[in-house]
Structure formats: C-alpha cells, structure tokens
C-alpha cells in the first residue's frame, strides 16, 4: 500500500508540510511524493529522513520533476 502526495507547483514549505502530514497519518508503509523543483526534492528528502523514513526510489521525470518513494 502506498499513498501519493502531489506537491508539484507548490513552493516552500508546502511540499514538506504535506509529506509530514502523510507521515503522521500512515505511520508505516510507503509514500510517493511528486515534486518539480530541486529545492523541494532536497527539502522533502531531508524531512522524511529526519522522521526515520528511508529513500527507496527516486525517478526523474521530464523537466526536472521527481517521483520520490519513501518507506518505513
């Protein structure tokens, strides 16, 4: 089971807020986060790892968008 957080087009700190909200909700499992700037990618990754979630997969899409999968 994985849930998806679509943070494309949103700027700081929304992508991190949305990711942390999801982390609070599901506690364990897999979360897919969609972002479209390098800054959001770094921020979301930093926030997820600070909550003990590990980076499972990162796919680069067109024009710098990312599909990041975290797992715990």
């Amino acid at each position, binding site marked *: 089971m994985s849930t998806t957080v679509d943070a494309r087009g*949103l700027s700081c700190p929304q992508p991190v807020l949305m990711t942390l909200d999801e982390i609070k909700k599901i506690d364990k499992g897999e979360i897919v986060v969609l972002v479209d700037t390098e800054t959001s990618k*770094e921020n979301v990754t930093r926030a997820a790892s600070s909550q003990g979630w590990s980076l499972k997969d990162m796919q680069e899409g067109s024009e*710098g968008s990312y599909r990041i999968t975290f797992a715990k």
Partner: protein
Amino acid sequence: MVKNLFATRWGIISVGAIIGIFAPLLQKWGNPGNMGVCVACFERDIAGALGLHRAAVVQYMRPEIIGFVLGSLIAAYIFREFRSRTGSAPIVRFVLGAFAMIGSLVFLGCPWRAMLRLAAGDGNAIFGLLGLIFGIWIGTLFLKGGYNLGRAEKTHTSVGWLMPLTMLGFLVLMLIFPQIQGQDKNGVLFYSLKGPGAMHAPLIVSLIVGLGIGFLAQRSRFCTMGAFRDVLLFRQTHLLSGVIALVVVAFITNIIANQFHAGFAGQPVAHTMGVWNFGGMVLAGLAFALAGGCPGRQLFLAGEGDGDAAVFVFGMIVGAGIAHNFGLASSPKGVGPHGIAAVIIGILVCLFIGFTMRRK
C-alpha cells in the same frame, strides 16, 4: 546525478559564513553603516534611483541586488535548475511584498540587515529580530491551519527571464548614466549627494560580491525567514545554521575591521523606538512567511525563473516608493508620521490574507 554539496549542513554554514565576511567588508569598501547588504534598503535605494520616491538621501541603483538575481540565474543554468513558473497568487505576493517593505522600513532593515546590525553591536536589532520571529510564528500558525498560495504552473522560458532582464536593464542604465560627482541626477537615474544613498562600494566590487552571493545562495537555498520558520514549524535547524554562521562570522569580521560598537543610541541608520522596531518586523516577518521567503530568497527564486517571486520583488520596490512618499519609513529620529498606522494596516491585511486563503 551530482550531489548538491551546498544543500548539506556544511554547505549552508559555509554560505552563511561567506556572506558574514563579505557584508561587513562591503561596508568597509563604502556601503553605509551596518548595511553591507540589506535587501530591503537596497531595493528602496533602487526605487529612489528610478524616481519612484524622491527621498534625496536614499537614491542609488544598488549593483548587489542586480548581482543577486543574475548570480542565481547563472547558477540555475549551470546546474540545470532554471524553471520558468508562475501563477501562484501573484497579486497576493505583490501586496505582501509591498507591506514587507513597509514593515522593514519602519524597523530600518530587512532580516539580513537585522542580523548584520546585531553582529555590529546595535542593540535595537534585538527588538527587530524578536519582532521578526514573532511575525514568522504567526505565519506558521496559518501554515499549520492550511494557508496556501496555490500551485504555480510551468510557463514560457521568457516569463522567468523578465526579472533577470530587468536587472540587466538596470545595470545598462547605470553604465549609460553613471554617477557624476556633485550631481543628483544623470539622465533618468537619481543619485544621492549625502546620506546612505551616497555611500557605496565601487560598482564593480558590489556587482561581483552580489553575483557571488547570488550564485551561492541559489545553490544552498539560503533564507533568513525560512531559518526561523523551519525551526518553529518542523524543529529543523538546517537553514538556521546558515543564519547563525552569518551572524557569528560577521561579528568576528566586524571586530577585526573595527566596526563593532555595542549600544542602542547613535547606531548607524537606526532609531531607538523599541516598540516600533519590534512592530515593523512583526509585519515584515509575517509577510515574508506568508510569501514563503525572505527578501533575499525572493531575489534568488526570481533569478531561477520563479515569476511569482519576481512579482513579490516588484511589490517590495513599489512598496518602498509608497513608504517614502507617504511618510511611512522611519529615520534615525524615529518612526515616520504615518509609520505606525501603516504597520497596523499591514498586519490587518496580512491577517486577512492568512485567514482567508486556506484549503481544507
């Protein structure tokens, strides 16, 4: 994929430290007291150079600001991060920019200068910084409650180029109409004969330092508002470590350069009205928090193609015109005749924006 070294803890600390060295040095090289770098003051000087206000002592086309945007543009292109985007509540960003500027001019400095004033011993900066943190804290309450400016969309590359091109245009104007000793105007550009606007490092020095800081800040995402917001919102100290490095290194540089003078009265371009040093920065901090970045970060974002950040910057420049034309800006004597009213109105406008722009 190359890892972005500047996005690490040591990356942000070294960028803060570099700014902490060069800002006091810019003061040594000619910039006004405790104003080696001040984004709000410098944008206000640009508004003066363009004649958007006629406060004769604060008119100069500051090359640091031009460098911030163009340095960020260069970094964004080298590292393939330039993304032209816009459409996330531009009008709201314009209004927030205008009030952020008004609040900053009541305090007499943006967050950058508040740090630099503190690092030079200006005790009034403590009230300003407390106000800044309080304003940002109010902003985080809105963020927790679902406040949101909505999504931006990708757009034509040229949209993201408009702010960098504007800055290039400003630089060209400076070269066509350079400052002439003893003249308050050359062509379309106004220049100050006395006051802070008359104090500046040589154009090429200001420009190079600006380009360097713009480049590094784009890489590291340095942000003086985010520093406090992330601690209040997420208990994250990443950005804060950069700001602390700035203050500590600027303090050391000031000591070495003999620019440290502890006290409250008689500090350069500062007033001692504690309540309004606090109040002005509550407004500025709240406006920066609602807009998602400090005035420096907005310039760096504008340099990497963010059209909404560019609108915020224009809002700040227009806000500076309003602040000086309407007597809202403070002076070393104290607040302007309508400064207090402007702070109250500004906070009400920000609260209106914060309460009404919620999703959920």
